């Protein structure tokens, strides 16, 4: 059976939802004729026409504002930010308006904002950032990041069907580096459900996005040493699947919180807060955070490599924690 890449899985997911539901449309910069900077919307213009595949001027704030307006008026917009980094230009519209509509006036905003995020592509400070936290921190928004092609397709479809605004973070490095055979036919992956990607008994690694693969690699390397790692892929970062988080923490009693995003104010802290409050009695060792250091994302290979959390670092920390 043919394998489908992560990027193609997202494309298929959007495509299928557009076939299913006339109110779904895509909008963004360079997404129609060009098919998007990463080709996620390739071919859609030809299939769905100009009204449903909308190229816009270079105006992130207007894209988000217009998406929100369209959602209020009965459509289901799927917006593309060319790079997640530039979502900062629409920050006010997202956090002050879209996120608060349901609470303020009971208005659903069934909108997805897709954003290619993450590093390891030599993108430098402006094209490599992980931007989940300000959105995780905004009540009213949901935040999703798939790690696999299967989840990418299932989660984008679930996000489009969801009646709340969803920030859908796509990892640029995974676009073409992961693939798998996908089921034919319609399926979705539910939001706010984490998934154990590898079972283990000694240490839990809680993570998401590209780092799921880094964690799995580390787990593989640690197995022969008799260190059994459980890898929990959060998949949805807000609202978090607290019960899966607490369950794995209680099971192994030792937890590593791993993310590509920078350390301070990253999701690792939130996870530590949940676990240290609600599973404290089960813990047999410190909660260990592994993250990028608190710097912009550097460009040069030597620096970017040192910046990004690696399987080596996870292996070393896990060994240390296992001796606790």
């Amino acid at each position: 059976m043919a394998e489908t890449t992560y990027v193609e899985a997202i494309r298929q997911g959007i495509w299928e939802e557009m076939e299913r539901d006339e109110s779904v449309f895509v909008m963004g910069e360079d997404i129609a004729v060009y098919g998007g900077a990463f080709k996620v919307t390739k071919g859609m213009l030809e299939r769905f026409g100009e009204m449903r595949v909308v190229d816009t001027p270079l105006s992130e704030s207007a894209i988000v504002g217009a998406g929100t307006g369209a959602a209020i008026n009965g459509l289901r917009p799927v917006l593309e930010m060319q790079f997640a980094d530039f979502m900062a230009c629409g920050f006010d519209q997202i956090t002050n308006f879209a996120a608060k509509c349901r609470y303020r006036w009971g208005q659903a905003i069934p909108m997805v904002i897709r954003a290619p995020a993450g590093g390891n592509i030599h993108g430098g400070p402006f094209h490599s950032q992980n931007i989940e936290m300000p959105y995780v921190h905004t009540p009213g928004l949901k935040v999703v990041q798939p790690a696999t092609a299967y989840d990418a397709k299932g989660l984008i479809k679930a996000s489009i069907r969801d009646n709340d605004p969803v920030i859908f973070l796509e990892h640029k490095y995974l676009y073409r580096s992961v693939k798998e055979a996908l089921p034919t036919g319609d399926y979705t992956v539910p939001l706010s459900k984490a998934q154990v990607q590898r079972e283990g008994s000694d240490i839990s690694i809680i993570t998401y996005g590209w780092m799921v693969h880094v964690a799995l690699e580390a787990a593989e390397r640690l197995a022969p040493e008799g260190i059994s790692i459980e890898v929990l892929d959060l998949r949805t970062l807000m609202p978090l699947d607290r019960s899966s988080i607490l369950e794995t923490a209680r099971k192994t009693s030792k937890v590593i919180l791993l993310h590509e995003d920078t350390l301070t104010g990253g999701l690792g802290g939130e996870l530590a807060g949940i676990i240290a409050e609600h599973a404290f009695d089960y813990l047999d060792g410190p909660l260990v955070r592994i993250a990028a250091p608190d710097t912009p994302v550097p460009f040069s290979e030597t620096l970017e490599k040192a910046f990004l959390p690696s399987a080596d670092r996870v292996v070393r920390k896990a060994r240390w924690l296992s001796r606790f």
Partner: protein
Amino acid sequence: MSAPAAAHPRTQVDRGLCESLLYYMLMMRELEERIELKLYRQGKVLGGCYTGRGQEAIPVGSAILSRPGDWLTPSHRDMAALLIRGITPREILAQYMGRVSGLTRGRDGNMHMGCAERHCVPIISSIGASIPVAGGLAFAMRYRGESNIVFNYSGDGASSRGDWHEGLNMAAVLNLPIVYLCNNNQYAYSTPLDQQMKISDIAHRVAGYGMPFEIVDGNDVLQIHEASQRAVAHARAGRGPYFIECKTFRMSGHSAHDAADYVPTAQREEWSRRDPILMLQKQMVEGMGADEQVFVNLRKRVLSEIEEAVSWALDQPFPDPATLEDDVYESV
């Protein structure tokens, strides 16, 4: 005040329409007075308190043309737009007083109100943010091939915001059915026009988006009504957005706590002679032989409706703290 191109011939207006316009202007005026000068001072209205005193002609002359399928995005000085959409003084008063029967059920305050059923987007505090949102509302109308349109309201201050620019440009490029009513009341909070921009007419900025525009006397409801008719016809016909700049003046502080000492007395006095309600009444007397008694009766009716609504609203409960965390996400 001049129009961009040809002068427009004055259309006939009937007296029924004028009475309707007058009713909404009076209701807005009196309701806001009641809120600001009584309820706010009595501590029944908390937080900020903004009014559109002197600007009533703008929402009234335009929103009166709206159809049920249209959407409106009023600014904080356009209460009458809500009234025209069928939102009641009861609901508005309960809103201002943070009661659960207010339009936002106490979650938001004072003029931050709107209503999905009646197609009014509650104001977005970030000034200018409603411009792109109007674009999306209008986009959905084009998407479905409707002849509905969006009425967007904003002030001179909003025209300094990036969102204003992005939103107007996008509307022009995507040919969206929007009528923009810009209330140029010459101040953004304490900042006079000449510290906001080096031009005198905001409408001229709009030429840079390739969009038709007009400049009208914002205190003359009939002028606004006429210009709005042209704009609405343009937008409903699928010819894209249309911009109307209404020259007016904020006959109050920025909000209830602001004495507006920064406004030169002469300027305030000049504009106080141009009260939009008195202007319409004069037009009705001179043009259609209406007599004072009509106005007295109308005002009486307005005041008694307000009276009734105030006592109703004062009886409404505050929201139950147990509901605090509801409605952040869809409950499933």
